[in-house]
């Protein structure tokens, strides 16, 4: 199983039947493909609708794109609205889970994913509203950068997307829960040891008494 699949499969287990979910571009979007058969979620697309169909589902429609600009389709029972309503839904706490990628995340639950000063400034889009409004915020990303540098830090160095907003960090190596006391290692990926997690993580973390292997197949 490659890194992305591990992450996407594990993220999918966070969803309960009927949840309203907003998935960021990239790995987070993949999670929708791995839902348990008895779980169905309602995908919110911040550009203005509910009932986003999983990729590869229905035929893409004219004038219907996801928040990444990709042509998509809408499920029966979907609803379209303007951007103010879209973010009323997000800011108002009506999204159960949002899953986002990140450049950096730290042991205080801070998250940085919208700019690298002087280099890359895509902008925050809807990310700042999502992390401040969703009931549960999951960061889903590869544990380290392509060069092997740690992304889970003691303190983010990049401008923040949100302060103290992250609830869970799900990577190809492990799952951290963000608690008021700091990071708690609750699961490791199949075949990954706690030492491996430690080597690849700058942040301090506590190992849960019953740390277990991610229940993914």
């Amino acid at each position, binding site marked *: 199983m490659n890194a992305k699949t591990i992450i996407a499969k594990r993220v999918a287990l966070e969803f309960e039947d009927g949840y309203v979910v907003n998935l960021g571009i990239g790995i987070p979007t993949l999670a929708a493909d791995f839902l348990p058969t008895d779980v169905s979620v309602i995908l919110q697309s911040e*550009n203005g609708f509910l009932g986003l169909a999983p990729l590869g589902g229905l035929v893409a429609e004219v004038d219907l794109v996801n928040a990444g600009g990709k042509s998509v389709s809408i499920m029966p029972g979907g609803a379209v609205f303007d951007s103010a309503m879209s973010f009323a839904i997000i800011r108002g706490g009506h999204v159960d889970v949002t899953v986002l990628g990140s450049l950096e995340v730290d042991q205080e639950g801070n998250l940085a994913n919208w700019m690298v000063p002087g280099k890359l400034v895509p902008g925050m889009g809807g990310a700042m509203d999502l992390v401040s*409004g969703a009931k549960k915020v999951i960061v889903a990303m590869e544990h380290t950068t392509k060069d092997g540098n740690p992304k889970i830090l003691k303190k983010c160095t990049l401008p923040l997307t949100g302060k103290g907003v992250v609830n869970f960090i799900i990577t190809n190596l492990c799952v951290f829960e963000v608690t008021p006391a700091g990071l708690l290692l609750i699961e490791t990926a199949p075949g990954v040891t706690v030492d491996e997690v430690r080597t690849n993580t700058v942040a301090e973390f506590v190992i849960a008494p019953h740390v277990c292997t991610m229940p993914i197949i």
Partner: protein
Amino acid sequence: MSKITTIEQALEFVQDNMTVMIGGFLGVGTPERLVDALVIKGTKNLIGIANDTAMLDKGVGRLVVSRQLKKAVVSHIGTNPETGRLMNAGELEVELIPQGTLAEQIRAGGAGLGGILTPTGLGTIVAEGKEVIKVDDREFLLEKPLKADVALIKAHTADTAGNLIFYRSARNFNPLMAMAAKVVIVEAENIVEKGQINPDHVVTPGIFVDWIIKG
């Protein structure tokens, strides 16, 4: 007086140095014919308010490439490399605003509210220099309303009274911007007679719309 006009007549209302709102999300729901004509017209030093600067050859992105904007007030510029390049070169001012805040600021501009109180951006550089208001011990950022001289709107169908309906995700910022500008110009794919749209289906009431061109 009919609201239906030519694209040239409509664009008379867009002049140098104006603030212009343009609907769309990565180009979807952007009135491309109006943007075409605005590029040809060459109006300069505009402040553009939009969700994003779309792509090099699509939507608001074309006004970046044509150097008609002095400032872009948007939530995202990542899909248009020219925006970043001009920003870094100091040739384009870019104000990045969280998407939900931007939408609500435009709504507040149209709705006569003094601003919005949002938790979004607290503890980030978005909050720098802004007033923080405490309401029942929770903190919120005060973000000011946004208004414009002109809004360029894309609709699926307009009736001759200016009532608008939108199609799928092409709705996005269009109905909000239609409330927040002095002059509202709509590019409608379809134009029907007054009375042809069920009043319950109208998204933007006709009173907000000044001019309609066929898209």
